[in-house]
């Protein structure tokens, strides 16, 4: 059945995003991995909306909300990265330990 194919694709995209989120050294790539995670969740919502709730498509409404919040998150995240880069002069995730101790 087609629903399972879409869900498997979304699960694979989510796992790739988690791997990139954990292993990336560059802070911009971490943000890209977060976008991958959000898109995997969106794909799940759209698949459920099409196959399980075809008349009142609430999954599409949720997807629109997630897209708008992801845009806001990208803007604020990139502003934070720019600010950290000005202060620390690097984008290496290993050196962002201001709040650690």
């Amino acid at each position, binding site marked *: *059945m087609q629903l399972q194919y879409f869900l498997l*694709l979304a*699960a694979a995209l989510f796992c790739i995003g988690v791997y990139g989120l*954990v292993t990336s050294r560059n802070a911009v790539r971490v*943000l890209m991995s977060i976008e991958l995670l959000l898109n995997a969740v969106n794909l799940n919502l759209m698949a459920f909306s099409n196959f399980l709730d075809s008349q009142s498509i609430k999954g599409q409404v949720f997807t629109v*909300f997630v897209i*708008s919040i992801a845009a806001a998150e990208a803007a604020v995240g*990139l502003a934070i*990265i720019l600010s950290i880069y000005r202060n620390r002069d690097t984008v290496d995730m290993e050196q962002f330990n201001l709040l650690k101790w």
Partner: protein
Amino acid sequence: MLNQLAALSLPTRSLAEGVQIVTLVILGLMMLGAALGVVLLPSIVYSAFLLGGVFISIAGLYILLNAGFVAAAQVLIYVGAVTVLILFAIMLVNKQQDFAPVANAWIRKGAAALVCLGLFALLSTMIVATPWSLWTGPIAGDNAIVVIGLHFFSDFLLPFELVSVLLLMALIGAIVLARREFLPEDRLVQQQGDAALTLPERPRETAALTGSTTPRP
């Protein structure tokens, strides 16, 4: 009569399903390959462009899921705005530096890969094993945009308005975070002479050098 109709409609239906399957496979392979490129390629600029490829493939998958409006929104917002924003951030931040190697980095990568593969195995087992109760009633189809608009202005009205406030807050917050800091008043007077037409902001070079945690004068 019914048998004739069934015989007539059967080949077209199977043809449509075949096209759907082939499109799904192509778009899925494109999406997964581009996502692997985003995560694994060493050059960050290639990663950003491949991220645009991931977003376009996902928009194609949305069209396959009878959602033209969300596909258009995906292309406009993600491909048009987020990818360009990330490219600008890369251009502003791109510093050719080799990160200092961390001891036992392969253990971290191996553990992360193992955890991700385990998560994928768990999720796929759950997806295959679950008996999904597929919808068999009437479908929205091409009427989807009307249904979405009705949802926005009836039962999802409060989240819709809250999202607009949140977007305004994110706009102001991003400007405040990314702006360069103002200098104190006494330095401002000194700086007036040599650069009369520049904004009274901290110059970028001095801001980049203050990497220590000592409080600024």
